[in-house]
């Protein structure tokens, strides 16, 4: 038996995650992913006013602050049977687009980059050579020898202070870091730039959504920010979007390609087999046909075998999770009770995450799944950019099934969704010009109703389900991206996607397992989102309708 290595806490993620791997001959041969927190928001929702559900579920996560809010309001609208006006659809897409941009930029620079970039090595860089490198990879206006010298000096001052703070005890100098000092300095400079940029990107949320994190504008029937559809506000939104998109085009994507070119072997590490997307970004009233991000499922990496995804084929397994045992069930038939216990990865229960399965199979969700499903569906924007990235990196399409592919896919969709946003802003302007300022559709709360919203958000496929009885929430639940990606084994012993992805990962030094972090972080885990529980009392078969 190999050596067991535990990483707990996994840092630079949302929430509390423990990863355990078994290393043999310098490679991971087994892996366990364990969510270490339970909050129980779905239990808390029972008996409450359905209109409040979006505000409650939003607090699942303050990183992807808009996503549960949106998914929840869609589920409530499906249950009460209201269709939102055009302007509300567009504003929601704009807020969603800004969420993709914000989330992915922060993930790449602040949560993931330090797995690839050695900040300490940046201190050895030659600023003049760094300027030349930066000029070669992009036409960003930020640059020049003076600029990089100042950044380096700033880092040096920080290090000289002896108060290393967040940089303390990183895996600096690890042989798995491959960038030359100049590339490390360039990336470190952009880490700092991105820290500042993201505060501006989030202001797009404040314009139509009052604030970020935790926007306050969605209500069943539309949005409340009717007074923010002014020329001044829209111009401000456009300029913040432009500044963000410029950064994506001229800094994020060039950095991604530059860093990836040193780590091409990661195109063969960290892959999974099955991919699921619910799709999102509706361009009209119909779902999923009008989605810009298509719905679909790919099994066993067979892109040609792409199929439409059907939520009836989803079941959640709890045999290895801290819930009372029962057979795997569709979310709406679930009977689940929390049962805290010991951490027993080998045979017993070991996570607060349940194990969602599609036709009994684990599925990866998120940017890579979306890139693959969009590519296989022939979405032109995705096909063009993916082909160009593969060509620039000189890697085959198979290399997408990997840690590198996952991280690249996140950048690719940031670019593509960002480009779409400009058109949506213009659509909104056109509507207002034509005198259409409607942002809300009135409705009446029915005594009974059921609905769900299937969505695709920054971290992947997200579903919210609600049942209303006596105008109150009878049952509420959500199956979230991080449960798909980071869930434990199921009754059949099939590994969750991150567990599968970790097998085969090289580990040069078990005391400093940076390679494990690379693959785990490439999924952008969000643990608070995933720890939830469903109605312990109901075991009915529900009929569900989607809006």
């Amino acid at each position, binding site marked *: 038996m190999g050596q067991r290595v535990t*990483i*707990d*806490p996994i*840092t*630079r*993620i*949302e*929430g*509390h995650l423990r990863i355990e791997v078994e290393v043999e001959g310098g490679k991971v041969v087994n892996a366990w992913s364990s969510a*270490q*927190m339970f*909050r129980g*928001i779905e*239990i*808390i929702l029972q008996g409450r*006013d359905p209109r*409040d559900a979006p505000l409650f579920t939003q*607090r*699942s*996560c*303050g990183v992807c*602050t808009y996503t549960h809010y949106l998914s929840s309001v869609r589920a409530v609208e499906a249950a009460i049977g209201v269709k939102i006006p055009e302007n509300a659809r567009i504003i929601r897409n704009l807020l969603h687009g800004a969420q993709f941009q914000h989330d992915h930029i*922060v993930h790449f620079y*602040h*949560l993931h980059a*330090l797995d690839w970039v050695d900040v300490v090595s940046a201190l050895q860089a030659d600023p003049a050579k760094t300027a030349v490198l930066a000029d070669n990879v992009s036409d960003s206006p930020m640059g020049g020898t003076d600029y990089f010298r100042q950044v380096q000096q*700033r880092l040096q001052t*920080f290090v000289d*202070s002896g*108060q290393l*703070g*967040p940089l*303390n*005890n990183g895996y600096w100098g690890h042989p798995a870091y491959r960038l030359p000092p100049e590339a490390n300095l360039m990336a470190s400079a952009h880490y700092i730039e991105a*820290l*500042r940029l993201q*505060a501006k990107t*989030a202001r797009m949320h*404040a314009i139509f*959504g*009052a*604030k*970020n*994190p935790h926007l*306050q*504008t969605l*209500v069943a*029937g*539309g949005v*409340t*920010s*009717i*007074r*923010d559809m002014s020329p001044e506000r829209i111009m401000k939104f456009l300029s913040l979007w432009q500044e963000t998109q410029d950064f994506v085009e001229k800094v994020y994507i060039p950095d991604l390609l530059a860093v990836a070119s040193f780590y091409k072997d990661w195109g063969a590490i960290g892959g999974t087999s099955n991919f699921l997307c619910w799709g999102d970004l509706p361009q009209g009233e119909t779902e999923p046909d009008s989605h810009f991000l298509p719905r679909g499922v790919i099994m066993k990496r067979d892109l040609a075998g792409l199929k439409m995804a059907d939520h009836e084929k989803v079941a959640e397994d709890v045999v290895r999770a801290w819930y009372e045992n029962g057979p795997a069930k569709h979310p709406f038939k679930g009977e689940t009770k*929390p049962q*805290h216990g010991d951490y027993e990865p080998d045979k017993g229960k070991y996570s607060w995450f349940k194990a969602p399965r599609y036709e009994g199979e684990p599925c990866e969700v998120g940017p890579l799944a979306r890139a693959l499903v969009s590519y296989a569906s022939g979405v032109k924007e995705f096909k063009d950019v993916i082909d160009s990235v593969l060509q620039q990196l000189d890697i085959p399409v198979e290399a997408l099934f990997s840690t590198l592919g996952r991280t690249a896919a996140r950048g690719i969709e940031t670019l593509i969704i960002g480009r779409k946003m400009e058109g949506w802003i213009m659509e909104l302007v056109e509507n207002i010009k034509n005198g259409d*300022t409607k942002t*809300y*559709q009135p409705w009446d709360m029915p005594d009974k109703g059921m609905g769900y919203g299937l969505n695709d958000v920054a971290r992947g496929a997200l579903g919210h389900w609600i049942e209303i009885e006596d105008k109150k929430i009878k049952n509420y639940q959500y199956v979230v991206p991080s449960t798909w990606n980071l869930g434990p084994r199921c009754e059949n012993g099939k590994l969750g996607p991150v567990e599968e992805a970790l097998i085969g990962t090289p580990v040069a030094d078990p005391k400093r397992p940076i390679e494990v*972090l690379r693959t785990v972080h490439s999924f952008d885990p969000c643990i608070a989102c995933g720890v939830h529980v469903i109605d312990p009392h109901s075991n009915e078969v529900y009929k569900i309708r989607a809006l």
Partner: protein
Amino acid sequence: MEKDEYNQFYAKLESYGVSRRQFMKYCTFLTATMGLSASLVNDVAEVFASPKQRPPVVWLHFGECTGCSEALLRSSYPFPDRLILETLSLEYHETIMAAAGHQAEENLQNAIKKYDGQFICVVEGAIATKYDGAYGKIGGRTFLEIAREVCPKAAAVICIGSCSSFGGIQAAKPNPGGYQGVGDALGIKTLNISGCPPNPVNFVGTVVNYLLLGKLPALDEKGRPVFAYGQTIHDQCPRRSYFEMGEFVEEFGSQEAALGYCLYKMGCKGPETYNNCPIAKFNDGTNWPVEAGHPCIGCSEPDFWDQMTPFFEEL
């Protein structure tokens, strides 16, 4: 600070893309937000200009959503890069730190030993108390054990957000994990920057107050700084005159909504909520809920998930 040092400081600021004028504007805003005399603006500026030792901060995450950390990263005054690199010394912060696993735990242990009695402990999130805290663990230890070890060693415990202040959403009925705010769970006195999430300016203001005057700001009976939580939303609301005139929004999307009438009848909790949202606003002063046509949900009050719901029913 000597004149030369000031000039050096401003030259440095400008190299970070912040003009002297922007910086002083910020210090003035912060001084006013804290309710301090305008004569102190230069002293506030000095706090940012010349920290001899950046104050060590240990930031703990418990039962939460990381929204409060995210809120702090939206700070525009100062920008988050300055906060992290030049203002504070974030000894432990799971969302940002490079180290992971046992190296991360080592950072925590080293910090509380090295800065025993001197560090600021910021807590984000509530503490699970049921089943001996089994609903939340980090590195094999419960939230409760970690808090019991770290908080008493701090110079001050600042609870950021309504979860650590008062229990927050996971403590809403029926509170499956037995979650509590830090003060209740440990039986200690904490400074509470409540809100879901709070405005980062109120956190920065509190820390500056501490660095400037060597003590924490005056608190209300709920442990909240009076400079930020001294008045109700209602009393500071720009839509207050509509309330007095009896001009109310009664349906979203209506003409009254377009005219910006009072949201009281839509369920606004402004009359019972203490916070400075209408003055400070969010995201660099861009907007706040009532301005975006949405009623206040009372997120800086204890137990607002139970006390202020249903959110869309009149008080």
